[in-house]
């Protein structure tokens, strides 16, 4: 117990861990936001009828999904954007947004394909406009189908951000490693760090469950 106290709490050590956690969450949330927006756009391009755009989206998704995010991050930070003078966190957010976008685009496309085409056609015959058909028929169903996969994308994203120590960002993983080196207790410290990541994942799970139940309740009401 005393050992755990001296590793994680003593002399304000927990504040440093919180600061690291904040950086991790900052990068994760921003990347998720931009990644989802960009991913939706990509999915739109991917299913569009205009071939060049479709091919562009296909190539983008293939390249980004197939490349390790650490390599991507290092290439962007130390290569492409090295002269841009951007803060490291911004580069990390860009990288993870690009990466998440590819995954989101694919999961949205998969959800789209799972939908019955006949429903949209039926809506169109009933006089709905294209936008109305999307808004009232397609979109709610995509949300429902994509939710579980989206949840795992969120959890994955949070875990991927643990490599940002390579681009001079002190995130949760980096803080944990630093503590492990200082205290010479890597096993306990890294277990502690793992528990924090686990807690975040569990929190994401709880939030998704809660929203699921809420939407079910709303359905039952109406």
């Amino acid at each position: 117990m005393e050992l755990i106290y001296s590793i994680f709490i003593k002399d304000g050590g927990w504040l440093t861990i919180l600061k690291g956690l904040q950086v991790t969450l900052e990068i994760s949330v921003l990347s998720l936001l931009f990644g989802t927006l960009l991913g939706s756009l990509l999915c739109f391009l991917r299913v569009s009828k205009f071939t060049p755009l479709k091919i562009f989206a296909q190539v983008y998704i293939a390249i980004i999904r197939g490349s390790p995010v650490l390599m991507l991050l290092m290439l962007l930070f130390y290569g492409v954007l090295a002269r841009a003078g951007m803060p490291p966190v911004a580069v990390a957010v860009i990288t993870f947004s690009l990466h998440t976008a590819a995954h989101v685009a694919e999961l949205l496309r998969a959800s789209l394909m799972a939908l019955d085409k006949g429903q949209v056609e039926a809506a169109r015959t009933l006089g709905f406009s294209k936008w109305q058909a999307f808004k009232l028929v397609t979109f709610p169903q995509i949300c429902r189908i994509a939710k579980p996969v989206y949840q795992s994308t969120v959890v994955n994203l949070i875990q991927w951000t643990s490599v940002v120590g390579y681009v001079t960002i002190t995130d949760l993983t980096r803080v944990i490693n630093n503590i492990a080196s200082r205290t010479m207790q890597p096993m306990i410290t890294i277990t502690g760090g793992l528990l924090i990541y686990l807690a975040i994942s569990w929190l994401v799970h709880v939030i998704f469950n809660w929203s699921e139940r809420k939407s079910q309740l709303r359905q039952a009401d109406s």
Partner: protein
Amino acid sequence: MKLKKVAKMLLSCVLAGALFTGCGGSQGGTDKPAQDSGKEIKLGMITHLNATETRMAEILQMVQEETKVPVSKYVLTYYNNLNNLQMGLESGSVDEVSLYKCVADFALATSDKFELVAGDNLKGLSDSFCFAVRKEDTALKADLDKTIDEMKTDGTLDKLINDFITNVDKKQAPPKIDIPMTEGAQTIKVGVTGDLPPFDFVNTDGTPAGFNTALLAEVAKRLGRNIEIVDIDSGARAAALSSKQIDVIFWAIVPIGEKIPSDIDKPENVEMSKPYFKDDVAHLKLKK
């Protein structure tokens, strides 16, 4: 080409010279029964910056020829950083780990899990510590060399070594170090990894501490320039240096005799400053 380079750099390290090992005849090993001197010992060390494992084997062979230290009885495993190295030892993947003597002292003082491997044939296998800068930064290298010389002559360096390495109280939190800031002066960015105590570690409040930081504070004062310390994963230091994200990193060199010049593992675009500290290698094993 770029990818290849990056991948290579990922295998970089802090303990550039920790490979030169030769201690102990038959004392090594934890759970192996009766060791005779011919027995192989599994030894863990931190990866060498810019040297592949094949190249390392060649260098070790040269060391053996030069110094008669029986390197070949060790089976080597390379770890990315000190944490991994230590976990390798604790989990029993390696029997011994090779560290700098002052790092080993720190480990012995902070944790009661380890003990020193006895053996006295380590003489002459010491490594020197220095700064590494980009090749084109000749002015910076000259400044650093000049400062190191000055600090050597007026005894500041010895005082720093005494305060932060030799006589540092390892049980206590390390002293806070303020790096003097000069308004409007040029800023030098220095990469630290935070994983080589007592040279380089990060305090509980998240600020870098240890000998390297104290040294940098002194250098900043003497050069009249600002020094910004950047915490970076050790695997990315070389990439950060060559892409100009940082200007200086810490490096260890291992000059042994004629055959093994100090720049044996130096990348082409990097230049070393004069050494400011020298340390021997020590081996640690788990307590029985």
